[in-house]
């Protein structure tokens, strides 16, 4: 009896999996606060309606974005990536860009409001 009970316990212990959510974490700035950052420390990313990415006024593919952010962060560790996304862009493009920036090793991400 005890053997069976323990076998059952062990079976459920081993086979139980909890579905865990996984995601890209960000900390938002409090509403209404404005911090001034010298413009040399900002990398501006713009995602347009079609999902086309522009970094500091130069177009970039997703891979290029990653490598350019990496170089920028290497040169200046204080760099903050500011992402501005068009209202009609797909959520996927936005997540892709955040993912790419995080992969490039930069966690200082700021989300700008679309115009």
């Amino acid at each position, binding site marked *: 009896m005890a053997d069976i009970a323990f076998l059952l316990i062990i079976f459920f212990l081993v086979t139980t999996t909890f579905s865990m959510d996984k*995601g890209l*974490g960000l*900390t*938002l700035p409090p509403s209404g606060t404005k911090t001034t950052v010298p413009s040399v420390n900002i990398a501006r990313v713009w995602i347009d309606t079609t999902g086309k990415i522009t970094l500091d006024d130069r177009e970039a593919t997703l891979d290029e974005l990653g490598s350019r952010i990496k170089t920028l962060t290497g040169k200046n560790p204080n760099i903050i990536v500011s992402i501005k996304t068009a*209202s009609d862009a*797909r959520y996927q493009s936005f997540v892709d860009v955040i*993912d790419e920036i995080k992969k490039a090793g930069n966690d200082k991400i700021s*989300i700008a409001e679309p115009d």
Partner: protein
Amino acid sequence: MAHIQSRFSRRNRISEGISTGPLADISFLLIIFFMVTTVFVVYRGFPVDLPPAQKIDALLGKRNFVNIWIDPQGRIMVDEFDTQLPQVGNIVKTKLTMNPRIVVLVKSDRNTPYRLISGVIEELKKADALRVSFIAREEK
């Protein structure tokens, strides 16, 4: 000699066997205890096609989460509430007063227009819920 032998045999009889009967009772009681006390809080929301991403972290500790589902048609759900964009801030604020350690999980369809996401972000900022995680599907 006979005296010694009898002494030995008596000692053997005393150390013989530990009763294992109650062990089953205890383990079953434990099983029943955990079955009864375990509570799963699951808000199902609605099915969304999450965007794939690679650099994602697992989130532990279900108690501190508020889920927000957003679909491309603009339907929004905050945990158990089916709601509209302007109410998101208030609901999250109420939840935040009950548990200040809340992390908001944004579960949105990959085709959702960004204006909805941005609207939700602004609402969260207003509610002071600043820890946000954009839930994604793991891309292999």
